[in-house]
């Protein structure tokens, strides 16, 4: 596993602050709801910058790629988004959670 996925929460939020203060476009993704078996608990964070660099995790690595893509959109538009991933999702075969759970992720721009 990418060691970046193991970063502690405080590092992630500090990174979000530092990256923004350094003038980068930044989005923060937060797990806000989970159903069934979910890899990361509610409150877990992923921070993303405009170049697609990221730190933290919202799943065990299953959906981070999709969240990063959506986050780039949020950084561009400034409008927050709520994303849902799970086996019931029609995109599950592509970016679903292999553990069978469902998660909802709130993605917002840091501004």
């Amino acid at each position, binding site marked *: 596993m990418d060691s970046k996925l193991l970063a502690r929460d405080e590092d992630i939020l500090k990174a979000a602050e530092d990256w923004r203060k350094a003038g980068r476009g930044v989005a923060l993704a937060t797990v806000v709801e989970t159903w069934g078996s979910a890899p990361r608990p509610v409150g877990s964070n992923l921070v993303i910058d405009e170049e697609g660099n990221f730190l933290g995790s919202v799943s065990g690595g299953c959906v981070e790629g999709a969240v990063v893509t959506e986050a780039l959109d949020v950084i561009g538009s400034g409008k927050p988004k709520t994303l849902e991933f799970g086996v019931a999702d029609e995109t599950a075969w592509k970016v679903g959670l292999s553990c069978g759970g469902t998660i909802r992720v709130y993605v917002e721009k840091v*501004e």
Partner: protein
Amino acid sequence: MRLDILSALNAERAARRAVVIVTDVSGGHQRLVRGSDARNDPLADLLDKHLRSGKSGMEETPQGRVFLTVHVPPPRLVITGAVHISQALAPMARLLGYDVIIVDPRTAFATPERFPDVKVLAQWPDQALPPLNIDRYTAFVALTHDPKIDDPALMHALSRDCFYIGALGSKKTHGRRLERLKEQGISDSQLARIHAPIGLSIGAVSPPEIAVSIVAEITAGLRQPPEARA
């Protein structure tokens, strides 16, 4: 999230203070509530529930659905008594994520050799405990078995909002302790906060087993709502 909210959040966390971010997930409106201001907030009850559990989560409110991002300081365990049980208890508590501090004025007991990787204060409780700022995220145990050390330590813990207080000693020993503390003017309702004999009843015999029963009881104090406890 606004940068000023994010900066304030990081500052509160660095200072070991609890804080909640309230986010309206449909509209995106966001505000920060400091733990010390939570009781005067319109969402006081919800905030209190989340500050106690330390868990973030979605909640229904009269204003709609909000997400509460909860940040509480890592729990601490303050152990009075650098004794054999403490040597097992300290590493177990560290595994569970606690910051551990050991207080014992007896310098032969309170040595870094006996307690690697743990903060050890070779001081009397009256001197050592007040600066620790024991808060609701602190568990407190008294394990010296010596009233000269345990009693003042327990009196300090009872004056604070710690989530767990436990004291070593049989029912008989604890009975005598309650009488002494009552003479010091501690009320029955306050004294009822002390878990004694300490630890869950699992037939523990050796010091590490007793430590297991203590960390289990502390975990129940941290995670279980009071009505669910036996």
